[in-house]
């Protein structure tokens, strides 16, 4: 065999229409290595951390569990299992309100004495050997089974169950697996740190996922402000067929509706998924979790959370057990500063305002952003002058002002005529609006109303 060559990193000229360039604010945590959170006294594992059906608890109060034990399952077609993230004793079931407003039951676990901590934990999750060349690829159905058993969901934020995404569909053959390392959301650097510090499990996971879906080609997409991450991945992927593509830094590049077409060249239908054009997109952290689930049989128990914003004293990238509270992570990042005024679950574009610091971290929690009064300077809302900036910014080619104002007035037919349901709520329009109209809020409200009316 010839000398191993790092895979070529190729820039992609193609872009998508619309989109915006918000200040990235990633410098706050870009250079902060992943830090392992000490085991908390208690975690509360929500029985719904994903898109789909609620899990049912399979443990009861006073049961002893070890980290990785199953605590919740569901037979529903779209759901994802929940696992204990620390070892200890289960206490009485309690409810928690997730950032999106849903109130869900949780399985609280009081920490026992035996825990995997610090570097040992980090090594257990991302360390060790991750084969890429002489990788014995298991049968697709076995990969799928392992992914399902591990309770994997998309870690980029949407939290869609991964085993459904990877399930083979004879009617829709998959040509390309896209691994998403864009992390276009401002402030967040969790994926970036993972790509730098643990590129190998990402590569291994990509190979496994591609084999599960029968993809012939693997592309890893990374924005051009993270070239060092692209280099790290290309080194980890040396001598494999994986292609690393550097794409323009532009929000929302990391949306699968943008990234898939940018890399592959075909647009996803508004009511469809990337798989309709032969593409499956998985986030880099999800890819790493796939490798861990398939090769080591380990479930999803931890994730990297960027705790950031000018409202926290020491912004950090933390490896946190699922079910730890937002408040505890903020404390580990030095606590709130005096001028902190708003805590967001996620980043400023797609994130939800958090009402309660006791909220547990879930599989989709990519970051906690704390904004200050200065960040939130707001101007008074004025009338729409139909300037069309929102139309230019919309990456999905919609007319946000029409949809939002129709929703505000309850003109549901009009909102539907302007394709309200095609909106993915990326926030580009509201970011651009010179009249400070809360476009996304209005559209979200309108969609909720229409969804309720349909049932």
């Amino acid at each position, binding site marked *: 065999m010839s000398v191993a060559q790092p895979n070529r990193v190729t820039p992609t000229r193609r872009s*998508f*229409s619309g989109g915006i360039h918000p200040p990235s604010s990633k410098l706050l945590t870009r250079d902060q290595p992943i830090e392992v959170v000490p085991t908390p006294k208690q975690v509360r594992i929500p029985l719904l951390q994903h898109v789909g059906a609620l899990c049912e608890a399979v443990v009861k109060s006073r049961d002893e569990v070890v980290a990785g034990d199953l605590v919740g399952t569901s037979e529903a077609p779209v759901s994802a299992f929940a696992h204990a993230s620390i070892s200890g004793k289960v206490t009485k079931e309690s409810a928690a309100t997730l950032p999106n407003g849903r109130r869900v039951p949780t399985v609280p676990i009081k920490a026992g004495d035996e825990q995997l901590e610090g570097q040992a934990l980090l090594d257990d999750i991302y360390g060790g050997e991750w084969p890429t060349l002489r990788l014995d690829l298991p049968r697709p159905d076995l990969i799928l089974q392992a992914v399902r058993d591990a309770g994997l969901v998309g870690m980029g934020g949407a939290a869609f169950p991964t085993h459904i995404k990877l399930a083979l569909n004879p009617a829709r053959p998959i040509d390309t697996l896209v691994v998403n390392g864009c992390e276009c959301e401002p402030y967040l650097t969790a994926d970036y740190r993972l790509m730098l510090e643990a590129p190998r499990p990402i590569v291994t996971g990509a190979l496994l996922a591609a084999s599960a879906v029968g993809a012939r080609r693997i592309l890893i997409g990374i924005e051009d402000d993270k070239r060092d991450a692209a280099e790290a991945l290309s080194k980890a992927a040396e001598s494999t067929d994986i292609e690393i593509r550097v794409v323009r830094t532009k929000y929302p590049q990391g949306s699968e*509706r943008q990234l898939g*077409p940018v890399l592959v060249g075909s*647009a*996803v*239908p*508004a*009511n*469809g998924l990337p798989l309709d054009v032969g593409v499956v997109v998985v986030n880099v952290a999800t890819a790493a979790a796939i490798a861990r689930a398939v090769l080591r049989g380990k479930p999803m128990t931890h994730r990297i959370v960027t705790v950031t914003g000018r409202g926290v004293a020491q912004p950090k990238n933390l490896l946190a057990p699922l079910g730890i509270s937002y408040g505890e992570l903020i404390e580990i990042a030095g606590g709130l500063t005096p001028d902190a005024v708003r805590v967001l679950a996620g980043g400023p574009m797609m994130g939800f305002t958090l009402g309660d610091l006791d909220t547990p971290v879930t599989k989709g929690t990519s970051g906690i952003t704390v904004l200050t009064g200065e960040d939130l300077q707001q101007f008074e809302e*004025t*009338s*729409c*002058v*139909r*300037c*069309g900036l929102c*139309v230019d910014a919309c*990456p*999905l*080619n*919609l*007319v946000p*002002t*029409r949809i939002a104002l129709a929703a505000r007035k309850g003109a549901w037919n009009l909102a*539907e*005529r*302007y*394709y*309200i*349901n*095609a909106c993915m709520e990326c926030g580009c329009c509201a970011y651009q609006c010179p009249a400070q109209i809360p476009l996304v809020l209005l559209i979200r409200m309108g969609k909720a109303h229409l969804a309720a009316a349909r049932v």
Partner: protein
Amino acid sequence: MLQVGICVVSCLAVEVLTSLWRGSRPSLQDTSAIVTGVILGLSLPWSAPGSGGVVASIVAIGFGKAVFGGLGQNIFNPAMVGRAFVMISFASSLGATAYVRSGATLEILTQATPLTAAKELSGSVPGIWALFVGNANGSLGETSVLACLVGGLYLCLRRSAVWLIPVSMIASAAVVAAIANLLLPETPLTVLQHLTSGALVFSAFFIATDPVTSPLTGRGQVIFGAGLGALVVVIRLFSNYPEGVVFAVLLMNAVVPLINRVTIPKPLGGLPADA
């Protein structure tokens, strides 16, 4: 300049009055009333009496904007509503004949405006260069195409104005004028004269690009501009009025809701089946 000042002050005053009347807070800080005043002042004849500007301003803000519900709700460009009103109501002092004053100190002001001259086939149309730099009779804002282009390009570069509208408007005016020249050889104006005389370029950059009264999408903006350019030339050639900008803008404003409706863009990647 005095005329512009009069219009701005009256527009602001009317904006405050109508807002108070409607019980909403006057939207003065957005400067939209000032823009209306400036456009209005620049579109009036140089000789117009101050009272004409005041009346035009009252109509512009009062009937052009306030009755529709204020900023953002008006269908018609307020300045053009005011201009059209005084042009018809006070035809002698504010219409086409107002530009000609035999006693004026500058020789150029004793001649008819280029378009009136062409219409009546009396007097001569100045040369293209004179029209381009503004050495001709006309309203305050319209005479120098050069100045309009400079200001217009600045607005487009600042993205305050959408470039699609002026480009499609001027291009369509040129095409229609060219066709007219071919079909009606006796028409007095050449294509270049059409483009450099009257308010065509001024309105393309400063009036047609008003966001409130123009379409939202790129496709719609091209349709809007093309319609405007064609109408301007058609009105110049076939109506009793020498200039067609005011009516062309008002007519195209009226069809903007229709244009918006037929140009709803398809979402990226195709249609959702459930909508």
